[in-house]
């Protein structure tokens, strides 16, 4: 008898709570779809950071043209759902630089370029370095600041041949996260604002791809888990 009463009580409390979750999820989806529809109508490229499915989608007119996997996610605070954001600023420790084409004078004799050094045994042959801005020139660590101040920190996995300094920076960055974000939150609170940050770890090439494609003025949506 007591068991039956417990079961009844559990069902009584559990069912409305589950229904409320469903409504919240439906409402969240509705806001996202409305925001996406507005972006899709523009016929321009937009991005969806789908943190529920751990992927970044490149979309045009509602069609997914590319998807990048998110290896891990850390978030601090939470920006509003169902709003189309604009990328306000993109910063990297080492920004890629465009090269200016040197115009041949005509009077100068062309100097023959030395042939590339043969690769060391066991080392994969490198693609010849061209005077061009290519994906390999893109950074793997950078910050994307959205128009509401939300920060998307993009990181890539630590490469196997990382230097000691790179490893040190990686682990310092990883383990000081909570302390540094708490202090920033406190400082922002004193100024009357909140601090929202998402740190996404992507595979190296995908991190470079996102930098290549997501340019200032680009639009995006964030789908929270």
């Amino acid at each position, binding site marked *: 008898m007591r068991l039956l009463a417990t079961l009844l009580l559990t069902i009584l409390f559990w069912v409305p709570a589950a229904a409320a979750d469903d409504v919240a999820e439906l409402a969240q989806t509705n*806001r996202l779809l409305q925001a996406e529809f507005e972006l899709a109508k523009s016929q*321009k490229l937009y991005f969806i950071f789908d943190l529920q499915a751990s992927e970044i989608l490149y979309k*045009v007119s509602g069609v997914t043209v590319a998807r990048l996997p998110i290896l891990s996610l850390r978030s601090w605070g939470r920006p509003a759902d169902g709003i189309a954001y604009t990328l306000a600023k993109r910063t990297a420790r080492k920004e890629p630089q465009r090269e200016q*084409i040197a*115009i041949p004078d005509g009077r100068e004799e062309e100097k023959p370029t030395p042939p590339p050094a043969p690769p060391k045994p066991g080392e994969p042959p490198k693609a010849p370095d061209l005077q061009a*801005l290519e994906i390999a020139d893109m950074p793997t660590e950078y910050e994307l600041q959205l128009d509401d101040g939300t920060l998307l920190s993009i990181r890539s996995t630590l490469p196997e041949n990382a230097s000691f300094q790179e490893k040190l920076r990686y682990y310092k960055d990883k383990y000081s996260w*909570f302390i540094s*974000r708490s202090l920033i939150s406190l400082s922002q609170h004193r100024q009357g604002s909140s601090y929202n940050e998402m740190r996404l770890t992507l595979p190296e090439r995908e991190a470079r*791809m996102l930098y290549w494609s997501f340019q200032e003025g680009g639009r995006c949506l964030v789908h929270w888990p």
Partner: protein
Amino acid sequence: MSTDDQKHWTGSRIVGLQGQELPPPQKPRRRRWWLWVPLGLILLALTAFAGVVAYGWHLGNRHVDSQAEISVKDDKGKPVAPDKLAAANDKLRKKLAALAPKGQYVVIDTANNRVYLRDGDRTLREMVASCGSGNVLVDPVGGRTWTFDTPRGQFQVKSKVNNPVWIKPDWAFIEEGEPIPKDPRERADANVMGDYALGIGNGYFIHGTLYKRLLGRNVSHGCVRLGDEDLEFLFKTAVLGTKVIIY
């Protein structure tokens, strides 16, 4: 050790009245209470710091749960019922799907130098291309500047040309350090664009190349270069009006 030495040593010990040996007197212990002061201060500082961090953490995460309270309200300000919400979501999904390109369309990935022919979510063919180099050219005389990027966004096939002739723009002469010709006929070059070209607007084309070994690299002046077979396939498949999405 000699017997005399032992006597001398024995004489230095303290002996009781009845001849028994007494332990040496201990020096009074100095209380080092002041050592606790910095230790206490450090503990206090650490506790305060932990408190600050905990408060900061609270500030940073207090809005997380409140997002679950999201609701959609109707015109009268009342929350919309779940069944109506689900129906509205289905309707929005259909409206989104209706915006998608109809039939086959072309997707160009400038980062990886790839061209895809797609139909809906299916990729029908993947092609290796050469997209814009991203380099900058400055005219030393007029100061004009060109950036050789492939444009991004949504375009469509606006023209299809057999045996295209490249009408060289000013930058092509400046880049080579040659004078810009006054006679337009001197701008024509019939040997560089391959057998076919598909125009996507603003002077940009998908065309062939003489530099096939550089396919897969960013070396063009903004146009999209393809190998002969891929170019022929695309030329024969894409009709005028085919959507071209470049990212």
